[in-house]
Each structure stands twice: as structure tokens, then as C-alpha cells.
């Protein structure tokens, strides 16, 4: 209370400063007048009396100042004076100011970005009421959170710990609103889902348990606000409309509120449907096969997760005992809803923590650098400080002034950093690297992020502001003014130098990494995939989604192929269950056995090749070189003997060598014999960094797949081609959902990891480089300014430019060379790690080595340029006269 009062008083006095000054002035004048009155009475003339009174009064200005200080309010006042002074000083050295602000902005911006990722993924709970009591069930072993529908019902009805339990499952369906049929991500949810989450509809109504009447009942859709906005243009009339999901009619009954984006942070659905509406009775009644993604609910008031676990485990035991065939042992625990427990939360936590650590190190390094910059500045100003001390200024006042300067820099840096970070985050939030997968990581900065950034700026200001404190406290004005030089020259290695060397080493590692990554990325873009993705468009279709029974699929696929061939300028058309390097998610491995094996067990497996189910034209469209034998024809169908085309790796693994593979047989899981009729070159199938993997290609007529890519090769404009493909397919079946992309676009997703790694490493490398520059600059500038007199004497005694530079910057350059060498070595040793992410990452590449050396040399040159200029421009005459 007292503190508050005094603060209010101070602020009040600050605002009434001019009034107070006037009053003080009047009071002192009144005093002098009264004294003069008395003196006049004793016989002096008025003028003489006033003169005497003024003299007797003493130091008018001093007492005025002291009175003002005694009345309070001067702290703020002198603070503003400090700020003005600091601003003037900073304006006088714009280079220093810019370097300091930029350094700090980068460090704080990096921290803000990383922290908001942490905030979004781990701290900010799901946007639902009472998120703190919302838990998900983890059943232990294998598919941790997943459960079958009957088991879920038992958990829901038999537990005593939860208010209620809901379950949801993410899936992809074909949606037909009468225009372009599309494929969308949805949540299948239990009827009580919205009740359990305690959410109110934005429009219309939500479905609830009373809507459910067994399989295929309750054909209702609740749209997410985002999908309603983007696909129904916020039209309230959307509610009540009937649309088709997988060819069956559903009614839109409501829209979810805008802030609700599902209960799994990594995937927000386009809409929600009841689980019973989409699944058939068979699926709903099967107890084995845990397929429903997660079970969630609010714990009853007062029940802790630890208390709930035994209750749930007893249900688990009951289920195991009652249905031993369907259920194994369950070891149930609870985890916070939203991140699917250990599966995602733990690695995410680790990743973000590592990032946070890295960002923290960067901030620390930035503080260390700014600290040495400030120390250098304080050393340059040591004479000014000495003069102020000699004139009676308190050390406290001088320190306060230095801190004001540091805080100004840190706040400016913080502001710029936050601004830059916010811009970046806004882009990141809007950015969706996987067009087919609506990830929703809302990394928008919120109040937390801003608060943390401001706090960091403040703390770092204090940190680096504190570096020159000792220097100022130990300044001896008499010695300094007498001798003009600061201290003896240190020959021993200081802590600051070690820090700087370590930092340069880290920077060199980062620069090495980023160069390696960039080079690897460039190489991977031009590497040999074993096929030619350019000029091919992939049309992803799923006939199952469009309601085709299995036996109708081949005929429809044939019609689709024929329809594509009617498009002008189309060179070739093919069909495959999955195009290589398209991350389609449908590529599977199957076990194969050698022909002589009769006992088909896991231990006798000869190879586990990737399995492609293709139409005969596939190899021509993909331009996959056939090395030997033949490709398929339309006669390789159900009625003819099973055949396969294999790649070289398959031949090596199963038949020992590629030479004698042709014509031989192998067996698949059910014992069917398949004859090898052709062989293609190895290629990349799932990632760019993979070693050659075995693969087999089976005729789609013998190994059917309802979900497939139509591959269309054409030299013509991709947009026009895409439009033509779309219209042809619509002519065939207007209700068929299609996803079109060019093959290179699909490749982009495979490249996403390496690209992100390259980008991150690049950014880190740049940050490290900038920090090294400021670090070396700070040290070099400091050593030059400390030794100006010595250098002047050397110049006067006839030292050459080279010798002056050596004396002034030798140490900084040595540090740089040592740090860089260590960093380069470390980078080479550590790049094995990189090789797993970036294609052909090797730093033993002369270009990379040369690049690193060049980069570090450039950094050194940039950083020492200004101090070197300063050392060279020393005029001994002026310097010696001055000091």
C-alpha cells in the first residue's frame, strides 16, 4: 500500500513537475525576501540586503535540486534524463546500435517462435471447456489409444471415474455436395462426443446419443466452422442440406464453433459424423481389432488420473477374462487429451525442448556478445566515466545510465524480434505442408508468447548490461586521468575468450551443416530416381469410396484408362496402387518366399519387397527402364498364370544375382507361385535417402486394388491437362472423388523433411554466423580501443601496417581460426546424423570444405574490418597529445 502510494505520489509529482518547480522557486524566493526584509531593517539598502540574503542562502541551484530529490519524483525524472542521454549516445554510434539490436532481435525472435510452438503444441490445451479434467485412455501395448467399438461401450458403461466417455476416429471419405466430389478428412465420433466435450453448436444442432439406432442410423453431419466457411461460404442455409458421403445421403444438421478444431492437435477434421452412421454392423460388433483412434472424457470432480487407473484396469481384466480371444492384457493409463499420450506427446516434448534449449543457447550467446560489446564501449568511455566520477557523480548513477542503455537496446531488439517472430508465425500458421492432410497447429502468438518475449528481452538486457559493471566499479578516476590507460595487457586466456572460441566452433558446425544440407538437397533434386516424374499428373481415385463393389472395379479402371487416352497430347496412361515417392500411404510390403520353401513362416521369409499393383503401361508412363524380360500385357489377367516384374534388389535378395532371375518362381504369403517375367532398374520408392529396396510389380488384373493412381503423361500444360482429366472422370462418374497433383508436387512432400531440415539448419547457420560476427567484432573492437596508446607508440616507433594489425587483431584472428577448425572437425564427425535426413550428405566434399573455410574467413573479415580500420588510422601525434 505504502509502495503504491509513494509510486502514485511520484507519478503525480512528475506530472506536476513544472508546477512544483514554480512553487519551489517561489518558496525559496520568499525566504530570501524575508531575510532581505530583516537585513533592510538593520539599515542596509534594499538592493544590498537582497544581495546579502542571496549569498547567505547558499547554493541556490544545489538546494533546489536536493529539495526536489527530497520531495521524491526525481528517480523517474532522472530516469527520463538517462533515457534521453542513452538515446543521444546510441544515435551517435548507429553501427553499434544496429548490430546490437539486430543480434538481439534475431535471438529473441527465434525464442519467440520456438516458444509459441511449445505454447501451441504442449501448453495451450484443446479449445474446450475445462480442458484440465479432459483425459484420454491409453490401453498399453501396440496401438496404444485405440479400441474396438464393443470394448469402448464396456468402458463407457462400466467405469466409475468419468462423467462420460466419448470416442472418435479419424478417416477419409468421399464427399459429394453436387459439385466436385472431394475427399475430406473427418472424425467419426460417438453420439455423446459433443455432450462429453460440453460444446455448444455455432449453428443448428449437434447429434446426441438419442439419434443412434444401430449401424447406418443417424446420417448426420456437423461441419467444422472452417469447412463451413471455406466450402459453404458461411451460408446458414447449409444446415438442412443433404449431401453424399461415400455415395450415401447425409444431412448437415449443424456447425461447430470456430475455436473448436477437433480433439487431436495434429489433425483437424472437415466435419464430424456419428460413428454408427458410417460403419456397418459387422465392424461395430467386432470386439477384436482396435480401430477407434481415442477414447476421451472428463474425470469426475475430485477423481485424479491415478485413482481412475485401477477402476479402468479392472474393466480391462473383465474384458480379457470374458473375451479372451479378442482381448490381450491391458495396462491402462490416462494421458492428457489432444496429443494421444506417449505416442505423440513425448517425442513432441523432446523435440520442442531440444529446440527451446538451442534457442536459449542462441540467446545466451547473443547476451555474451552484447556484453562484450558493452564492455568495449564502457572501456572506450572510461575517460568520460572517470571525469564524471571525479566531478562527484555516484557510481550508482553511472551504472544506472549504462543499464538504461542496455535495456533500451534490449527492448528495441525485443520489439523487432517479436514483430519478426509474429510475422513468421502468422505465415507458419497458415502454411499447410501436406495439402491432403489438414494439420492444425495453431502457432499464432498469444499473450503468453508476448509476455515471454518481453521478459526475455528484459532479462537479457540486464544480463549483458551487467558485464561492464565490474569495470565501472573498479574505475579509479585519479589513476585513469593521470595515466590515460586502463589496465595492464592481459596475456592469459580469459573466460570471455574461451566462450567466444566455443561459440565460433558451434557457428562453424552450423555453417558446415547448412552447407552440407544445401548441397545434399541440390543433389537430391537432380538425382536419379529410377523413373522420370516430370510431365506426369497423378489422379488419386478410390472406387471403394465411390461405392463400387470389388468385382466392378477392374471394368471401371479400364474405362478410366481409356477415357484418359482420349485426351489430346497424352503420351501414355497407366494405373498403379501407389506411385513411387508420392507418400500415398497405401504402399505395403509383403513377404515372399523362395520357390523351394514349403514351410511358410516368418523365419523362412526370403524378402519383404514393396508391392506395386500396376497396369501394363505403368513402366512406359513412369519411364522406368526395363533391364530384361518383358512387361505385362492385358492378357496377364485372372485367368492366366501369376506373373511379376521385379527390381534388381529383389533379384539379389531372392535369387542371389540379377542374371538368372528371369523365368524363375517365388511364393507369396498364401503359397501362390509367381513367375518372374521381367526386371527393372532399382529406384527410389519411399524416400530419397533410402538404400535400394526390393520391389515387385504385380499386374493389377491379378492383384486388384480399388484405390489407385491414374498416371497421365503429357507434354501439355498441367492445368489444362488437369482440367481435362477432371472432366473426363466426371463424365464417367460424377460422384467419384478425385485428388489431382503432378508427380513433382507429390515429390515435394517426400522432399519436405530434407527441405525443412535444410531450412532450419540454414537459419541456425545464419544466426550462428551473425552471432560470431558480433562476438569477434566486440572482442576486436575492445582490444583495439584498450591498446590504442600502445599501438600509437608502435606506429610512432615505425611499426608497419602489418605489425600494427597483428598486434591489434592477432588474438581475435587466432581465436577465429582455432574455433573454425574445431567446428569444421566437429561438423565432419557429426554429419553421419545428417545423412539420415539429407540425401548424400557428406562434408568430405571439397566444395563444402572450401565453402566452410571461405564462409568463416569472410565472417572474420567482416567482423574485424571496422576495428582494423580504426587500428590503422591511428595517428600517433594526435593520440599521444590527447592522452
Amino acid at each position: 500500500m505504502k509502495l503504491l502510494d509513494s509510486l502514485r505520489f511520484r507519478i503525480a509529482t512528475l506530472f506536476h513537475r513544472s508546477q512544483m518547480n514554480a512553487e519551489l522557486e517561489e518558496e525559496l524566493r520568499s525566504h530570501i525576501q524575508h531575510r532581505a526584509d530583516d537585513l533592510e531593517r538593520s539599515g542596509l539598502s534594499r538592493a544590498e540586503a537582497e544581495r546579502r540574503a542571496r549569498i547567505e542562502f547558499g547554493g541556490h541551484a544545489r538546494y533546489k535540486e536536493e529539495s526536489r530529490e527530497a520531495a521524491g519524483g526525481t528517480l523517474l525524472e532522472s530516469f527520463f534524463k538517462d533515457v534521453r542521454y542513452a538515446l543521444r549516445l546510441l544515435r551517435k554510434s548507429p553501427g553499434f546500435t544496429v548490430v546490437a539490436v539486430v543480434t538481439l532481435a534475431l535471438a529473441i525472435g527465434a525464442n519467440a517462435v520456438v516458444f509459441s510452438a511449445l505454447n501451441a503444441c504442449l501448453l495451450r490445451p484443446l479449445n474446450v471447456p475445462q480442458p484440465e479434467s479432459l483425459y484420454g485412455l491409453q490401453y498399453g501395448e501396440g496401438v496404444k489409444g485405440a479400441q474396438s467399438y464393443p470394448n469402448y461401450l464396456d468402458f463407457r458403461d462400466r467405469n466409475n471415474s468419468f462423467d462420460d466417455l466419448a470416442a472418435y476416429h479419424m478417416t477419409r471419405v468421399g464427399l459429394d455436395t453436387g459439385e466436385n466430389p472431394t475427399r475430406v478428412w473427418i472424425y467419426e465420433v460417438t453420439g455423446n462426443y459433443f455432450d462429453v466435450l460440453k460444446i455448444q453448436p455455432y449453428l443448428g444442432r449437434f447429434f446426441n446419443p438419442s439419434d443412434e439406432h444401430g449401424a447406418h442410423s443417424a446420417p448426420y453431419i456437423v461441419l467444422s466452422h472452417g469447412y463451413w466457411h471455406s466450402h459453404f461460404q458461411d451460408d446458414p442455409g447449409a444446415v438442412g442440406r443433404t449431401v453424399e458421403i461415400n455415395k450415401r445421403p447425409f444431412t448437415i444438421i449443424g456447425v461447430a464453433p470456430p475455436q473448436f478444431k477437433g480433439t487431436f492437435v495434429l489433425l483437424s477434421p472437415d466435419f464430424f459424423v456419428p460413428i454408427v452412421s458410417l460403419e456397418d454392423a459387422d465392424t461395430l460388433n467386432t470386439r477384436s481389432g482396435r480401430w477407434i483412434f481415442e477414447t476421451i472424457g472428463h474425470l469426475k470432480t475430485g477423481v485424479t488420473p491415478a485413482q481412475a487407473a485401477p477402476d479402468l484396469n479392472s474393466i480391462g481384466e473383465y474384458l480379457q477374462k470374458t473375451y479372451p480371444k479378442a482381448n490381450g492384457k491391458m495396462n491402462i493409463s490416462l494421458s492428457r487429451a489432444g496429443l494421444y499420450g506417449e505416442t505423440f506427446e513425448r517425442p513432441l516434448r523432446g523435440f520442442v525442448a531440444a529446440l527451446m534449449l538451442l534457442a536459449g543457447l542462441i540467446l545466451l550467446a547473443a547476451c555474451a556478445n552484447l556484453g562484450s560489446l558493452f564492455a568495449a564501449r564502457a572501456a572506450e568511455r572510461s575517460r568520460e566515466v572517470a571525469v564524471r566520477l571525479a566531478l562527484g557523480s555516484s557510481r550508482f548513477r553511472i551504472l544506472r545510465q549504462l543499464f538504461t542503455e542496455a535495456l533500451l537496446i534490449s527492448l528495441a531488439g525485443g520489439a523487432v524480434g517479436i514483430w519478426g517472430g509474429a510475422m513468421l508465425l502468422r505465415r507458419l500458421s497458415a502454411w499447410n505442408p501436406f495439402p491432403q492432410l489438414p494439420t492444425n497447429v495453431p502457432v499464432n502468438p498469444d499473450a503468453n508468447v508476448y509476455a515471454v518475449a518481453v521478459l526475455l528481452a528484459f532479462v537479457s538486457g540486464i544480463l549483458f548490461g551487467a558485464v561492464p559493471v565490474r569495470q565501472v566499479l573498479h574505475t579509479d578516476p585519479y589513476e585513469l586521468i593521470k595515466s590515460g590507460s586502463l589496465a595492464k595487457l592481459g596475456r592469459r586466456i580469459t573466460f570471455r575468450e574461451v566462450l567466444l572460441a566455443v561459440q565460433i566452433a558451434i557457428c562453424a558446425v552450423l555453417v558446415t551443416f547448412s552447407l552440407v544440407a544445401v548441397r545434399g538437397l541440390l543433389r537430391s533434386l537432380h538425382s536419379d530416381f529410377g523413373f522420370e516424374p516430370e510431365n506426369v499428373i497423378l489422379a488419386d481415385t478410390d472406387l471403394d469410396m465411390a461405392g463400387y463393389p470389388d468385382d466392378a472395379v477392374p471394368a471401371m479402371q479400364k474405362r478410366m484408362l481409356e477415357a484418359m487416352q482420349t485426351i489430346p497430347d497424352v503420351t501414355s496412361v497407366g494405373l498403379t496402387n501407389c506411385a513411387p515417392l508420392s507418400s500415398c500411404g497405401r504402399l505395403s510390403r509383403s513377404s515372399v518366399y523362395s520357390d523351394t520353401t514349403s514351410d511358410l513362416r516368418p523365419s523362412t521369409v526370403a524378402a519383404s519387397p514393396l508391392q506395386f499393383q500396376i497396369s501394363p503401361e505403368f513402366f512406359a508412363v513412369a519411364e522406368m527402364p526395363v533391364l530384361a524380360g518383358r512387361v505385362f500385357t492385358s492378357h496377364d489377367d485372372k485367368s492366366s498364370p501369376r506373373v511379376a516384374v521385379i527390381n534388381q534388389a529383389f533379384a539379389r535378395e531372392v535369387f542371389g544375382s540379377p542374371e538368372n532371375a528371369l523365368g524363375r518362381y517365388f511364393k507369396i504369403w498364401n503359397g501362390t507361385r509367381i513367375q518372374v517375367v521381367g526386371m527393372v532398374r532399382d529406384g527410389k520408392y519411399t524416400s530419397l535417402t533410402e538404400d535400394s529396396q526390393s520391389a515387385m510389380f504385380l499386374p493389377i488384373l491379378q492383384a486388384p486394388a480399388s484405390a489407385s493412381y491414374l498416371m497421365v503423361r503429357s507434354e501439355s500444360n498441367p492445368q489444362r491437362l488437369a482440367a481435362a482429366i477432371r472432366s473426363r472422370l466426371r463424365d464417367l462418374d460424377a460422384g467419384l472423388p478425385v485428388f489431382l497433383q503432378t508427380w513433382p508436387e507429390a515429390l515435394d512432400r517426400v522432399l519436405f523433411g530434407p527441405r525443412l531440415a535444410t531450412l532450419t539448419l540454414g537459419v541456425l547457420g545464419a544466426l550462428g554466423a551473425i552471432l560470431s560476427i558480433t562476438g569477434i567484432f566486440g572482442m576486436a573492437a575492445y582490444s583495439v580501443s584498450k591498446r590504442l596508446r600502445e599501438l600509437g607508440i608502435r606506429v610512432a616507433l615505425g611499426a608497419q601496417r602489418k605489425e600494427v594489425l597483428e598486434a591489434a587483431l592477432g588474438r581475435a584472428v587466432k581465436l577465429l581460426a582455432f574455433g573454425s577448425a574445431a567446428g569444421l572437425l566437429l561438423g565432419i564427425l557429426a554429419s553421419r546424423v545428417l545423412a539420415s535426413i539429407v540425401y548424400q550428405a557428406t562434408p568430405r566434399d571439397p566444395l563444402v570444405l572450401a565453402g566452410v573455410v571461405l564462409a568463416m574467413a569472410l565472417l572474420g573479415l567482416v567482423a574485424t574490418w571496422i576495428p582494423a580500420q580504426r587500428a590503422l588510422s591511428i595517428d600517433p601525434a594526435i593520440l599521444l597529445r590527447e592522452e
Partner: protein
Amino acid sequence: MTDQAQLLPGTLDLLILRAVSLGPLHGYGILLRIGQISGNALLIEQGALYPGLFRLVRQGLLKASWGTSENNRRAKFYELTAAGRKRLREETANWNRLVSAIGSALGAQPEEV
């Protein structure tokens, strides 16, 4: 003037409180009153009074208001607040204890030790 004693640090505030306790005074009046009650035995530079006054006002021991002086001039008058009166009592007691302690210490005779 030469036989005036230097003020001990911290005693000016006490003197101001005492002077004002006899009735509201303006700054110059306080100086005169201190001279009067101390028998002009203390050396106080006139201006030094004001930082003390402002300090006491800020501590809530004095309150100030503008008025007209006996010379018919505008002046700021100071008077004790309740807190000031209390403080004066305490400080006076303290001072007396100190004086008697130091007095008896300095006046101690060899045989008393």
C-alpha cells in the same frame, strides 16, 4: 559567529520538528525560531533547510500550505501532523537518552570506573 557549533548529522530534522511544534511557520521563520530557541548557538546554512523540509513533508510528518506572512508576503507555512508530533516525542526521548549516556560517559571520573 565563530563559536557556533556544527550541526550533527540528522539533527536538523529534529530541530525543524521542534521549531514547528510551537506553531505553524514558514521556512525563514523556522530558521529564526531555531536560532531563538537554541540561543543562536547552531550554524545552519539557510538553503540546507529546504531539502529537510521537503523530506519531512514526504514522510508525512509535516504538512504545508500557502499563506501570508507577518511581512505581508506570500509564504509556505509548515505545521506538524499527528505522525510528526509522535515522531518528535520519540526522537526527543531518544536524544535525551543519547545525551545522558554520552554525557555520563564523558563526565565519568577515574574513581567511578
